[in-house]
């Protein structure tokens, strides 16, 4: 097995997700299948190959530092589950 149930639980926490026990089991199996499949890449020697993070050779997409109109606060907040006095509201942290 490439990945264990306890690793799945750890990764779920990193991803801010939770699963019930039957889901954990099926996710472990499915993720394991996928990880076994992708380990196919180990067949290739890439020690001298530069990684590609972007399909085009773009560098420094600069633009003029100009003030442009932006959306009003009320519009931005209009989709927020909870808002108050021009701010997003979150559960108490401290």
């Amino acid at each position: 097995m490439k990945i264990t149930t306890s690793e799945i639980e750890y990764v779920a926490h990193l991803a801010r997700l939770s699963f019930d026990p039957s889901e954990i089991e099926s996710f472990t199996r499915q993720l394991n299948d996928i990880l076994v499949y992708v380990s196919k890449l180990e067949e290739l020697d890439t020690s001298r190959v530069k990684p590609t993070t972007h399909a085009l050779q773009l560098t420094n997409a600069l633009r003029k530092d100009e003030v442009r109109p932006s959306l009003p606060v009320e519009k931005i907040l209009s989709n927020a589950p909870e808002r108050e006095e021009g701010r997003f509201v979150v559960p108490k942290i401290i």
Partner: protein
Amino acid sequence: MPILIDLSIHELHDILSRRDVSAVEITKAYLNRIDEVDPKIRAYLTVTADKALAQAEDADRRLKKADAVTPLTGIPMGIKDVICTKGVRTTCGSKILENFVPPYNATIMEKLEAHGAIMLGKLNMDEFAMGSSTENSAYHPTHNPWDIERTPGGSSGGSAASVASRTCAGSLGSDTGGSIRQPASYCGVVGLKPTYGRVSRFGLVAFASSLDQIGPISRDVTDCALLLNAISGHDYRDSTSVSRNMPDYTDSLTPGLKNYTLGIPKEYFISGLDPDVEKSVKHAISALESHGAEVVEVSLPHTEYAVATYYIIAPAEASSNLFRYDGVKYGLRVSDYKNLMDMYIKTRSQGFGPEVKRRIMIGTYSLSAGYYSAYYKKASQVRTLITRDFKKAFEKCDVLAAPVAPTAAFRLGEKIDNPLQMYLSDIFTIPVNLAGIPGISVPCGLTSKGLPIGLQLMAGHFEEAKLLTVAYNMELALGRCEKWPIP
């Protein structure tokens, strides 16, 4: 009077320009068509009838004064629900965005509005564009108009099924690993993924940012060129969009393929390729040869590694992009939680469907401490090898020709319980996204069961014009699809 819904965009433009028909009449014909057939096909998530009719009245005013009329003025379109539309709900096929109403338009929506195009509504898709069958939509699956027991493909299944069932004149989709080309192929319509950077992604909800690209789905190649003209170009709000001269893509719709070399990648004709698909694709290639193209065999040796590469890179980028759905700024927030962490976890666990969770998990795992080199870095290196394969191939040919998918449309439910099998249906479309090159799917025949088959054409960066020339010649050689899947 022709049947309005049977006409292509350029044919509609001709009769609109002559004032034989109004944009309101065309829009009403489409709204009736949606009422009539969409309950069976389910391509739409939202129909914006009132907005469409108001836009049609505006278009008619422009047409009457012959003021700023373009080939898209008065043309009713459908938009994949991953593209932000100001004031119109944009769900991405997800419950987490069920009530999300964007306060702004994607750049391409501004462009379409400037043309006077009409939006009929928002089209169904796999949740966050993750899937190959539209079965991962949190709302309902979409059905293939050629056989309603089958999938229209995905993730832009609604965009392809709506064009094929004539519930819009043309549509926009997005393609991260084949999500425009594969459904276009399954539904017998034309679908183009432009070069990465050709079309602005501003307002396209992000899945895998280094791979995503918006593109058109249409009845024929001429419509494809018209739509590409309208949506291409640099945008200061998308720093990965490219400023580069934009040709008029309709100039590339010329007969004859003299001086064109067509490369046939041998790795795309493997065991597992459906014999009907192989026969049709080879027939299309010989038709192109008879129109003057020279045909050579080429090799893309790393093709077999593309799916593995993609299923590391795309989930890694997705896991990062989808962290924004945390129940704070927009989207779902569960009502019952103990504290902030609990709110995050419950909101995300209830809001996302299984495939999205699967990909977030793969991505989070591959980016987590200790695994970066083995997975993400390795995949990014193989991505370089796949890109080099294409560069080498394009030294020998102008355009590559191959199948879009190993089979025609599969049955709904057939692959939903086996994620890896589903991923492998994208084997021929994924390499194009990894290399950032353009690709198009053009209908090239039917299987013995009467299901559409697509020919995929691929070209170098920013060579969409070449794709359109070859695709146009294929349409001339084989004829446009005259049989409609449902009357």
